[in-house]
């Protein structure tokens, strides 16, 4: 690993060895929001375990989101890193609010790779946030719910039926500790992520007879890794109008393990849920938060 997705602070990570393995050899995984951050970390981890990848990102600005989203250049860089790890890669520019774009991407993925085995619903936005519930505008509320909750549901609409038909598949929804507890001034985000945990459980029951598993991963505060080009933590801090370093320090203090979560820690959980090692796990929530929600 080239100083990438697991920083020096990671203590006791249980991920794959640096060279990668073959836990997902021959599988095809579709990852949304793959241009950077957790999406890039997950894509790269899946590639290192032998999966081929379909990488989706909005790769452009979203009106109403106060910070730049992933770019086409970043998506291409994720693809290049995955190819170097041995994966065949298909990239598509797609907004998770656009069902037709997701269906077209799923069609292309199936035509290219024969089948889709893993769906990682990672695309999401952290802002507009930072204000009490009664100050959120109708448009801001709709945008947040539409991307963070609606986006995962639409990707499941595009891919779930195919997995059910083939009688196998694993869907991993990247939720948040905001899907388990509340955060002040983040009503829209917290509601969307709680919704995503609910969606996970319901769809898990829909698909259980067809051997398609659906689980959620709830990361705590993930460090903005330079190589992954993450900026979630920075944007949350900006929403709260506190310096990033102060925000980071506060989170570290609040976490029983006294360390931020690294992108690779989350990717390891995703790998486990994507692989057959978790074959009897469905409808569950894996929390990767250094113990933050344990108390």
């Amino acid at each position: 690993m080239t100083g990438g997705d697991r920083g020096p602070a990671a203590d006791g990570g249980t991920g794959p060895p640096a060279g990668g393995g073959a836990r997902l050899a021959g599988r095809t995984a579709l990852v949304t929001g793959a241009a950077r951050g957790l999406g890039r970390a997950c894509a790269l981890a899946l590639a290192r375990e032998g999966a081929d990848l379909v990488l989706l990102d909005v790769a452009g600005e979203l009106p109403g989101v106060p910070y730049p989203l992933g770019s086409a250049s970043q998506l291409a860089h994720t693809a290049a890193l995955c190819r170097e790890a041995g994966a065949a890669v298909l990239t598509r520019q797609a907004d998770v609010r656009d069902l037709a774009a997701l269906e077209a991407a799923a069609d292309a993925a199936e035509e290219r790779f024969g089948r889709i085995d893993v769906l990682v619903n990672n695309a999401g936005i952290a802002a507009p946030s930072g204000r009490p519930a009664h100050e959120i505008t109708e448009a801001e509320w709709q945008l947040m719910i539409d991307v963070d909750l609606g986006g995962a549901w639409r990707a499941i609409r595009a891919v779930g039926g195919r997995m059910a038909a083939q009688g196998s598949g694993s869907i991993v929804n990247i939720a948040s500790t905001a899907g388990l507890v509340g955060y002040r001034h983040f009503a829209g985000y917290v509601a969307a992520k709680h919704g995503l945990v609910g969606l996970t459980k319901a769809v898990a029951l829909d698909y259980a007879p067809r051997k398609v598993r659906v689980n959620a991963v709830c990361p705590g505060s993930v460090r903005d890794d330079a190589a992954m080009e993450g900026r979630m933590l920075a944007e949350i801090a900006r929403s709260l109008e506190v310096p990033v370093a102060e925000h980071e320090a506060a989170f570290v203090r609040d976490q029983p393990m006294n360390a931020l979560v690294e992108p690779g820690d989350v990717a390891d959980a995703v790998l486990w849920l994507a692989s057959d090692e978790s074959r009897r796990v469905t409808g569950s929530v894996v929390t990767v938060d250094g113990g933050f929600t344990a108390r």
Partner: protein
Amino acid sequence: MPPAHHTLTVSLPPTVTDTALATALAAAAELWWPGGRHPRLWSETVPAPAGSDTAARRRAAEARRPVAPGHRLRAVLLRYADGLRAGAAATDGDLVLTADGSALDARSLRLVARVLRGELAADAVTPLDGPLAPDLRLDEETRRLAAALAVTVGRYTGEPAVRVAVPVPALDRPPYALGALDGYAVLTADLSPGRTVAELLATEPVAPAGAPGPLLAPAEGAEPPALELAAGTGAGPATLPTAPDALPVPAHQVEHVRRQLLDGPPGTPLHRLDPLTASESAEQRALGTTPKAPAPLRIDEALAAQVAARPDAAALTAGAVTLSYAELNDRAEEFADGLYAHGVRPGDLVGLCLPRSADLVVAMLAVLKADAVHVPLDPEHPADRRERTARDAGVRLTVGDPAALTGHPPRPAGERRVAGAPAYVIHTSGSTGRPKGVLVPHANVTALVDAVRDDFGLCPDDTWTCFHSAAFDFSVWEIWGALLTGGRLVLVDHWTSRSPEDFHALLVRERVSVLSQTPSAFTQLAAADRTGGDLSALRLVVLGGEPLDTRPLLGWFDRHPEDRCRLVNMYGITETTVHVTAATVTRREALAGSRSVGRPLPGWSVRVLDAHGRPVPPGAPGEIHVGGAGVALGYLNRPALTAERFVPDPLDPAGRLYRSGDLGRLGPDGALEHLGRIDDQVKVRGFRIEPGEIRHVLLEDPAVSAAAVTVTGGRDGDAAAVRIDAYVVPAPGAGEDPGPVRERAARLLPAHMVPATVTVLPVLPLTANGKLDAARLPAPGTRRTPEPAAAPREAAPDGVLAAIWRDVLGVAEIGPDDDFWDLGGNSLYAIRIGTLARERGLPGIPLRQLYLTPTLGALSDALAREA
């Protein structure tokens, strides 16, 4: 039960492009299965050489993949790292075809492959409809032709056995099968020594292993031999395939062998058969000398080819005026006549003091047509400097008004000198202050353009800017790069070049596709680009003239993805004809903060040598020496300096090397890292200060969009007088407080390299050439306490500490908010303070503490906490 899927991997001829292949696939599919769901072509680049294990694994993985439900066929085109030539449309690759086993069979796949390889027309392949044809026997003609093909190929490859596929009728085919009449069986020709013609002709073709029955039902899924005969019409004999790449040997040689098989006695040993005709044998023996490389061209000769090829295409745009190639040429002819009338003769030097206008380029070309040498004199330079430069050079004439060159009688025709003759003299400022004129021949410039033409895909569709002064050799690249590749050159006037917003508007308006900039100017342009118009025509940015910091390019890539606009960093020197190396910069290099300037251009060479001219050990720094096609003739009228800088190449008696005075390091991949000027190296107590590294750390800060570092003092040996000052331009939305920037730098840099001050500027000053103008940087910012501090605290440790600061820094009054660095502190002063503190009974002060708590008050508080 048919197998789940069939797969076939074939290599592609290098001339097949992705687009052509995709079109051929779509057209063939529509012809065979009209109205059906047609396969798409999927392209994938494997980041490893075609022969590597990685590539083999990828081919195997593609072959294993099932076909999606509802699809008949998948076509995946694999390209490889070693087949990739940037800018080239066509590369070698493998085509992996996979078919749904219930729809198609392996033979159909082979036909698809042959159609896509261009060996067979799509309409020559019959899709299955109706009953199968009756048996066809393998006739004598087919047998002889297969044997002749095997013998001929065997003579080329030296293989003892050659397999040839011969057409046989097909039997059991799946519903969408193709080519119902042309199945294949395999004739394995044993060519080992001692075998005779009769034995060869008696060889029976067999169905590939595992096939039921004798000859007529080839097994599905078996790999076909590379050599295939084409089925004849009706019951006629097979023929040689006619497609261009289907035969690895010339068809007439196969025919030559076939005649020998037919006419010769059956007992003839196979080694007597000769594919070569008598004249071919003779030619083969005569070979042994390689053709000479074409002689390099003069600039005006190379331009004449463009004028002849596209006389009416636009060549120059200046403001509202555009000249075609023919107009440019005609006007330059007229100017050349004028030069002759003014007494200019071959080999004379002609000063050009013209603004960036069409006439400047016309006059340059005219000087070359007159077989003279042009000496650009920047009209923005002071008149005295221009005059002195012209006098030193000994110019015959200085052109300041092009009107003086018009209306003269034609000059007599004469033979122009060779391409090795000088074309221009460009002056570079030396460390001694007296400019040196670098004498560059024609051939260097045409070699430069030829060296990058293919890689950069330079073509007549391109529009270039001439942004730089004619006195800066970056303009040589801009002008001749455009005109010798048939492009259009847009001249940027002085005032537009000084305004990033206006220049950006020009790029949009003129739809510029090839842009050359110094990194400093590009940083300002990139800032203007955040709010400027659409640069959709821009496809290539060449950065040169200064060291590049890649990190700030991330924002540019977000707006201009690398696959739409390529960014190339070039290292170069006037003495080696503008450029030496090129490195394509992508997000990867920017994220890694790469400082590589890449590999030498084709024809240029780079050596990193020590002071004795020996190669340094791998990865060690040394002086960059440049050899090859770009080395200039020398300095004008400076034989001693020329002999000092242009030295014989120890490895090549005919070659010369230019000693650049630059420090560099060669990576194991042959890529050069440029480490700065050797003269600029400043050492403090044995530690070298690397301004580039300091700048690099500053630029990694997300709050910083541009940075400059100055190192002053210390050259006369007083290390304590060395002072490092930094200047930063804040990133959009970042604050104006330099404090956090310096704190971050202090955490990341070794103590002797931490800047004493960080000054925030709205923009960095640039020279007329677009490089950082260090002389125009303001005095380093000070954050002195506005009012003298109320009352200097007298209690220890404050009082003692303040006294130490006063002694060491030589400042009379110091308040608790005064900052060590703002008072001129540096790392050696810090060490002295630490020493004095211990001597005077205070706790030791680690150097780092002064960075963390740089004010007297804060330091004092920190010491109190320690105690």
